[in-house]
């Protein structure tokens, strides 16, 4: 069973008096072991499609099936619950809460599930250790480097053991070396935790390492390419 099935997703926006097409008729299926990227130039609709697939936004038309259930018509609370329990998010900017320590930022993803404090804390520490930030649990975001912050964000995304991790331009604000290490981390998490990944990026390093390359152009899926293991970077 695929983890995600999108059928003819369409999203338009109003810009003044004009209606702008964000995504037009996007149909795709994502497998549980996917390490896929939505690629395309700026303005092609990558983030819009990722937001639709991540249940952050609602489509104007089309259906979305997540883990076998039609979630197109889910209400706000239902979508929030799925995001909380089955999805993980990594954003372009780390989007950490500045007044919380690294450990607390990670635990935040479990706090909102109302889990016991000791469980939140121990799982947060384990996730930070997993992303290579053991010993930095008590530091606040402003005392961490850009790469470390993004790793905290990754730890926050994986601590809830999601089925699908969505990452929107995760390397955009990182230097080349840091971005490379972050991609290595993503790949390791994908392998070890069997988490499906869906990136939105025009970073060639991500595109080259993805096993699935979905190219968008003007809001439409221009190509959907499955890449054999040997052809990946």
């Amino acid at each position, binding site marked *: 069973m695929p983890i995600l099935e999108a059928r003819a997703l369409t999203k338009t926006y109003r810009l003044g008096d004009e209606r702008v097409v964000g995504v037009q008729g996007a149909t795709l299926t994502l497998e549980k072991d996917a390490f896929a990227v939505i690629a395309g130039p700026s303005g092609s609709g990558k983030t819009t499609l990722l937001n639709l697939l*991540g249940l952050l936004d609602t489509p104007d038309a089309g259906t979305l099936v997540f883990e076998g259930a039609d979630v197109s018509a889910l209400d706000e609370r239902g979508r929030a619950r799925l995001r909380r329990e089955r999805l993980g998010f990594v954003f372009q900017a780390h*989007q950490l809460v*500045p007044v919380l320590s690294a450990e607390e930022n990670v635990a935040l993803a479990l706090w*909102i599930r109302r889990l016991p404090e000791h469980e939140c804390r121990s799982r947060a520490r384990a996730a930070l250790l997993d992303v290579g930030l053991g010993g930095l649990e008590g530091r606040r975001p402003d005392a961490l480097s850009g790469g470390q912050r993004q790793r905290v964000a990754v730890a926050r995304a994986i601590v809830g053991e999601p089925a699908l991790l969505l990452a929107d331009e995760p390397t955009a604000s990182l230097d080349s070396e840091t971005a490379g290490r972050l991609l290595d981390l993503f790949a390791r998490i994908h392998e070890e935790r069997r988490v499906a990944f869906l990136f939105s990026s025009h970073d060639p390093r991500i595109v080259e390492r993805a096993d699935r390359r979905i190219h968008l152009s003007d809001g439409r899926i221009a190509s959907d390419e499955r890449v054999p293991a040997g052809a990946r970077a």
Partner: protein
Amino acid sequence: MSRWAVLAARNLLRHGRRTFLTGSIVVVGFVAVTMTAGFVSQTFSSLKRATIRSVGGHLRILDPRAAGKTDDEAATILLDDWPALAGLLSRDTRIVQAMPKLSFFGLVVKGDKSAAYLGTGTIPALEKQASLAADTVVSGAFLSRNDADEVMLGTGLSRAIGAKAGDLVTVMTTTPDGGINAVDATVAAVLGYPIKELDDRILFMPYGAAARLLKAEGKANSVVVLLKDDRDTAREAEELPRALAAAGRPVVVKTWLDTAAFYKQVRLLYISIFFFMGLVLAVVVVLATANTMTMSVFERTREIGTLLAIGMERSSVRALFLLEGILLGVIGSGIGAVLSLLLRAALNASGIMLPPPPGATHGNVLHVDFIPLAYGAGFGVMSVTLLVAAWWPARRAARLNPVEALGHV
């Protein structure tokens, strides 16, 4: 402290100066409310004491025929055998004293000058202990004996007839049976009564002399009862009629408050001012806090978007901002309470003299009462006010679209 309270507290500290300024308004508001409540309470106490002293006691005992009558109508109805009634009252351990009052009016004459007066016949020793008149002697000495032909005149009245302490005046009146009687009396004292209308008319005479003048020996318009404790007033007003009726002496009992129209008006005025001031403070606190919280929501839009994106319920986002508001209210109130207590202690130790309250002759040393209810209410009101102030910004935060919020610059 819960994790959310910790987060709320840290968010408040994120913009320390802004939180300090907003919190200062809460603190000042709390101090203002509690100090004003303490001051108003002290003013009420002073006014109450002055009112009770102006009556001469807490309760007025009247003949049962005075029931349902106006004060003017009741003034013409005399109690018989007040000493027997006083004897019954003396058995009550809550009562300090019971003194008869005879009310009369007429003309007081000195030489070729005369003026209308409002007279009160009273027992000098008891009157001196309980009444405002004892505090107002400006010349001469208080009435000496119960049977002496003496009077005390208000300053205005003495001036009207050109009398001073030691002078001889003639007091004329109409007796209850319609006759006219007069007595020559020495002016024992001139009183500086604090209410001008009374000062121009008031005359005190020993009960014995007044009773002879009115041909009303043993009678009284009322017997005024002074209690040991103000708090017994209502209970005694309820129990005394029953007890006296059981002893074969039916009476009507009125409390000092029943006829204290001035006290009630001043109290109502002060309470109105207090509530108006409180309302203004609440509005100021609401506006200042709402502004702070709105700025906070605006600055944290992306953060709110992140919280929503990772699955935080909108109600939880709203609760987080409301918690920040309540926390600010509680902390501000706590600091305000400490400051208020310190300021109260300093003012009470300062010995500052206040002018006399309305109807009193002497000012009081400034004393701000400690009103636990005001502190409790202050905490409650400030917390609710901050909750109200945070409501709109919190609602705005909770209604943000996560996609738009994440893209907020």
